[in-house]
């Protein structure tokens, strides 16, 4: 999400309205973000790994969790599409990639995208391994760049893919599948030091101002908004 530039577009407005709070963004995958928060190193988390978030809340590490926006994942790959996945369902597409042993870049970083990728492989009935399955332990931007350079496939959130697509040799090959929907939630943490600031930011993000900002993001550059705001709560 950080690679898409959303926070840079949204946070300055909050900061100018609330000059008393300083926001430091630590851009990491969802799993890592929740782990940071669990150790008390974050006041607020934006995450998109529903199963991990539910475990996080159940363990008492979070105070409140609010879905704020959604977008979708896409399967991207080289235009030549050696595994012939274009237009297939996501599970059929992954099965075709594995059968063709076509290069596939996995973030392998416990991020929300990685968690979804693992779930989709499970749905496809495949336990991916082998030289074609490249586990990089890095963020979305790197995964896209490596897929592009090595002419491989990867699963990306649409926003990051669009934001970087000008420098990528990758096309969207599978999209719109139900298994590819991606919901982001904001969580205020129990062990954070600044509860008031965290609450203020969470309320703002879920409120009309934040939601409007989120909905507008990307409309100028990509002629479509990159994130779908989920109804304001206030």
């Amino acid at each position, binding site marked *: 999400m950080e690679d898409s530039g959303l926070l840079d577009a949204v946070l300055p407005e909050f900061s100018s309205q609330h000059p008393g709070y300083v926001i430091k963004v630590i851009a*990491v*995958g969802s*799993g*890592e973000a929740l*782990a*940071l928060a669990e*150790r008390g190193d974050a006041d607020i988390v934006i995450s998109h790994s529903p199963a991990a978030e539910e475990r996080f809340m159940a363990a008492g590490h979070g105070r409140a969790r609010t879905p704020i926006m959604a977008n979708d994942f896409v399967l991207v790959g080289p235009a030549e599409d050696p595994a012939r996945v274009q237009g297939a369902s996501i599970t059929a597409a992954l099965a075709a990639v594995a059968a063709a042993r076509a290069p596939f870049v996995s973030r*392998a*970083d*416990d991020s929300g995208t990685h968690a979804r990728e693992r779930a989709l492989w499970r749905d496809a009935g495949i336990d991916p391994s082998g*030289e074609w399955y*490249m*586990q*990089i*332990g*890095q963020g979305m931007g*790197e995964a896209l*760049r*490596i897929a*592009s*350079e*090595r002419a491989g496939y990867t699963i990306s959130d649409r926003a990051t893919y669009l934001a970087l697509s000008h*420098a990528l*040799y990758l096309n969207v090959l599978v999209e719109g599948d139900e298994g590819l929907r991606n919901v982001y939630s904001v969580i205020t943490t129990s062990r954070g030091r600044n509860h008031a600031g965290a609450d203020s930011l969470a309320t703002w993000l879920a409120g009309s101002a934040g939601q409007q900002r989120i909905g507008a993001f990307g409309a100028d550059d990509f002629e479509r908004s990159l994130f779908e705001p989920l109804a304001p709560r206030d």
Partner: protein
Amino acid sequence: MDVFIESLREAGRLLLSGDAYVWQILLLSLQVSGAGVLLGLIFGLPVGIAVGLLRFPGRGLAIALIHTGFALPPVVVGLFVYMVFSRAGPAGHLELLFTPTSMVIAQALLAAPYVAGISMAAVQAVPPDVRLQARGLGASRARALLTHLAEARLGLFAAVVAGFGAVISEVGAVMMVGGNIAGETRVMTTAIVLETRRGNFATALAFGLVLLTLAFVVNALLTRAQQARVRAGVHRPFA
């Protein structure tokens, strides 16, 4: 404190257990950095020796440039190699980005200034009389140069050791041009970054200790070779 003790235990376990994942990473680190230093030697050594021994216009500038190379940030070298080998770059057709080869090239670029700078200092530290004496005793120019280099061997070894130390420990360039692909381009330092990001501090620190152990073993071997030659050669520099 517990996390440090746990890391020590974990490091011992990782090294002793013969864990395939760890040994593969260790081996790749050695291969990439070893090849990087070797390549850096091929370029850095002649440059260092030439700048150390010859007098030519612009020599001061050359020395300043070599020393500036000590401060070359690995990420900048990584960026440069990335741009050259990316599909949009001039050497994109070679398809070397995110392979060990591009990592070796980046590390060679990083090692070369160390090798050049330290070998330059090493040959300059030898009194010029050595070469003159050798010439006076009837040695050819090439022979006299070899004699000079033999006198400088301690410093030349130091150049190799410093170059190796610089590249085995850097993460910026190998991360950028290697991509940290498990089993293919993941080395010790990128593995440390990864484990830290995952919150596995003990494993990350253990990898760090393994890296230091590796550096110690390599340096101990180099030093042994170095000191052995000193003992063997000290009384017969012209042999």
